[in-house]
């Protein structure tokens, strides 16, 4: 820990994020940069508590959840807390990124320790002042309470506390005493959002800033030439230039740039540009090849399947899809004459942006500053810094501060997609209907390993073979909310539903039987905890009244991802001859729920996200160009197309695990299985064709 004192009498505590957990660093900083604190918890002599939230906020609610943890252990009233977004600060924070649903898991102990340590220092300051034993003091709501009615606010103790040595091992609250954790806390940015404050990347306005849009080539094509003769003469246009196969139109205002851009024509060179037929060929080849990469092998699948009493097999396929956050890609960069760089905007990985820009421009990382704006969604798209690099490169070429904005069409056709994947599943059942052999081959286009080979029910099945094939495409891909599992979850859970039906088993009981096996006598390595799986399944069955709702068809799924467990039951009914999902019950084990309001938002949001994309989303390719390009044809789910959702959380006090993504993978499965239960129609492709 690092603490710093100020002449104003404020107490500041730095989190030392680089220390190994459980160890306090004894760094005391004596120099303080004027006006800029290096500390992340400040309590002024007036008792104002300022907490800095380091991770980029993308809608997952981390800007609120992190300070909640600190405030709880610090033992202050939430209403006295002001939260500020920290910018990139590699000296004082690590893992300032948003992705993988990992923030709370990574920082839970550090945050609690920071709050508890500060609280202990206030107790010690009071004890010293009153000349009593620290053990005779308690705290409540930002006040230290001593023996015989002695009382002092943290604010009044701030100056003294700042001089004390940082204690190594504070004590922590018992979770039954939590006042904020586990309760509903409103988002700290709500007031800004509902009054339209300019907090997003696209809202950034800096002195001397110009606007640019960029025309990008079809996938796999190179820029041969461009004609900007008309465009360059149009009002407000500063320059039209090319770099790295792209053409940038730079101007004073957005509309002027949009107008000029429409007057630019580009010619491209390209061989083997991809179309739908190309991708189909690659899938077919990938399924036929004998050069698949084996990802998991238990027992002897080939022998087992040959002996099976019954074989179930199915193939599933999904297209490339875009992330389409409501705020399209955009970024601000100012590469100055002195070699310093200011980057500002929506990024899930500010440090990676800093490094990449430093490398590109051949400057020291220390000269690259990154301001974090709020992000209007991301879903994984903003884990890729392509757009930040573009802005930096353009700024260095035109020698001006520039905001590059992507139109919706640029964003939707510009790549870094969820990869297209085809899965082939095969199961062998014995005479009693038990699955004894399980096979999966995943063929992905730029998907890497398209399987998650250690996922349940692997670990409960005697004979397993999981293989993957990756085909290289010029279509760029990247992580999309719950990477790989966002579609694999559907395919697997829909397939297991067929396995249950073929074996005459209840899909829930089938999972429970497998989990008993995985718990008591696992087959090979398991990466999940069977008891946590069992608990969410049992609660989902109970809360959904599984098979107890007359006239309601139900579908089940359960998935483990990002260290959390989510079981779902979807209800469906036939309406005008079509199956309609009316309700989803979800039970989540993500350990300790820090902010119940934010957590519900994540579960419901992920389910709606999963459902909408499963039902509607698809990009098609023609000669390297993706289509469609906007929401008139690329359909996103709307508010009149959603089921009701009940989100439940298991109360087990385990340290928090992921929440932004885990409810998405099981969604396609519970929905598809409910649709089958209602309509007797199985779904094998996304988007669903209902």
């Amino acid at each position, binding site marked *: 820990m690092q603490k710093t004192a100020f002449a104003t009498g404020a107490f500041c505590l730095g989190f030392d994020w680089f220390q190994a957990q459980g160890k306090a660093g004894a760094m005391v900083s004596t120099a303080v940069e004027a006006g800029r604190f290096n500390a992340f918890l400040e309590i002024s002599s007036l008792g104002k508590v300022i907490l800095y939230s380091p991770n980029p906020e*993308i*809608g997952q*609610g981390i800007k609120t959840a992190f300070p909640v943890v600190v405030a709880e252990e610090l033992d202050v009233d939430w209403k006295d807390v002001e939260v500020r977004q920290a910018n990139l600060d590699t000296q004082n924070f690590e893992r300032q990124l948003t992705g993988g649903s990992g923030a709370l898991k990574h920082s839970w102990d550090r945050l609690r320790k920071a709050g508890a340590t500060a609280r202990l220092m206030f107790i010690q300051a009071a004890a010293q002042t009153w000349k009593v034993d620290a053990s005779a003091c308690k705290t409540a709501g930002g006040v230290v309470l001593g023996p015989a009615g002695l009382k002092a606010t943290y604010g009044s103790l701030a100056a003294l506390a700042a001089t004390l040595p940082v204690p190594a091992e504070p004590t922590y609250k018992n979770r039954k005493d939590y006042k904020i954790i586990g309760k*509903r806390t*409103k*988002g700290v*940015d*709500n*007031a*800004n*959002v*509902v*009054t*339209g*404050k*300019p*907090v*997003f990347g*696209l809202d950034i*306005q800096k002195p001397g800033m110009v*606007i640019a849009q960029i025309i990008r080539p079809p996938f796999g094509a190179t820029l041969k030439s461009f004609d900007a003769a008309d465009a360059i003469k149009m*009002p407000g246009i500063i320059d039209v230039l090319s770099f790295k196969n792209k053409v940038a139109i730079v101007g004073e*205002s*957005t*509309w*002027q740039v949009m*107008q000029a851009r429409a007057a630019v024509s580009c010619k491209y060179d390209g061989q083997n540009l991809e179309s739908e037929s190309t991708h189909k060929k690659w899938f077919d080849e990938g399924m036929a090849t004998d050069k698949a990469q084996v990802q998991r092998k238990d027992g002897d699948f080939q022998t087992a399947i040959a002996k099976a009493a019954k074989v179930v097999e199915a193939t599933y396929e999904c297209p490339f899809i875009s992330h*389409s*956050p*409501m*705020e*399209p890609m955009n970024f601000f960069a100012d590469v100055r004459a002195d070699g310093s760089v200011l980057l500002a905007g929506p990024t899930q990985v500010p440090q990676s942006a800093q490094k990449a820009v430093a490398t590109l421009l051949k400057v020291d990382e220390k000269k690259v500053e990154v301001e974090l704006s*709020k*992000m*209007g*969604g991301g*879903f994984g798209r903003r884990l890729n810094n392509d757009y930040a690099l573009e802005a930096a490169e353009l700024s260095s070429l035109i020698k001006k501060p520039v905001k590059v904005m992507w*139109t*919706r069409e640029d964003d939707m056709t510009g790549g870094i997609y969820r990869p297209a994947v085809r899965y082939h599943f095969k199961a062998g059942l014995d005479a009693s209907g038990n699955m004894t052999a399980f096979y999966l081959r995943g063929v992905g286009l730029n998907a890497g390993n398209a399987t998650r080979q250690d996922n349940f029910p692997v670990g409960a099945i005697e004979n397993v073979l999981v293989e993957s094939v990756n085909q290289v495409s010029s279509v760029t891909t990247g992580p999309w909310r719950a990477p790989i599992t966002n579609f694999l979850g559907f395919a697997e859970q829909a397939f297991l539903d067929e396995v249950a039906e073929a074996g005459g088993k209840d899909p829930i009981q089938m999972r429970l039987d497998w989990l008993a096996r995985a718990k008591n006598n696992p087959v090979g390595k398991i990466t999940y905890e069977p008891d946590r799986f069992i608990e969410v399944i049992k609660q989902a069955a109970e809360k959904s009244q599984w098979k107890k709702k007359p006239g309601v068809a139900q579908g089940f799924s359960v998935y483990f991802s990002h260290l959390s467990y989510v079981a779902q039951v979807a209800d469906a009914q036939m309406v005008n001859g079509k199956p309609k999902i009316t309700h989803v019950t979800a039970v989540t084990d993500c350990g300790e729920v820090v902010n119940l*309001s*934010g957590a519900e*938002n*994540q579960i*419901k*949001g*992920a*389910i709606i*996200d999963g459902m*909408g994309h499963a039902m509607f989303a698809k990009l098609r390719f023609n000669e390297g160009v993706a289509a469609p390009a*906007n*929401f008139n044809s690329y359909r*996103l*789910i*709307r*508010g*009149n*197309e*959603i089921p*009701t*959702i009940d989100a439940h959380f298991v109360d087990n006090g385990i340290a928090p695990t992921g929440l932004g993504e885990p409810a998405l993978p099981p969604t396609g499965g519970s929905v598809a299985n409910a649709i089958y239960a209602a309509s007797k129609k199985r779904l094998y492709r996304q988007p669903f064709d209902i």
Partner: protein
Amino acid sequence: MSIQLTINKKKVSLDIDPNTPLLWTLRDHMSLKGTKYGCGIAQCGACTVWVNGEAMRSCVLPLSAVANADITTIEGLSEKGDHPVQVAWDQLDVPQCGYCQAGQIMTAASLLKKKPNPTSTEIVDGMSGNICRCGTYHRIQEAVKLASDIASKKKTSTTKKPA
């Protein structure tokens, strides 16, 4: 040639390309960033503003079409951020990423002006034109209902006769 209009009760005179959509007029020329760009083709609703009290999509409205009109943006919906819709939105903790919310709020506030006591169906249908990519729809719909309750309580209390 300049175009006159009123934005959030302030008269302005703008000497820019009259084809400039109202959205970019607001964002680039008035520094009013609350109205958002989501699609540019009136499909998502993030750009919703009021034109003479009617909710409209500013991304497809050229400035020339709103000459002399009365524009209200999210920044002008209330002076203190305390319009019943804004209050309900915070109370129910509606926003996730927040980007679509200004448009949602302007649509909701307009809906409630026309239908102060909407049914659930009227709320769902009335709001279905606004996309929320984060999927915060349930709370949006609940917040419209709550806003309607808040507004009617306010109305009752202001029309109460003094004791």
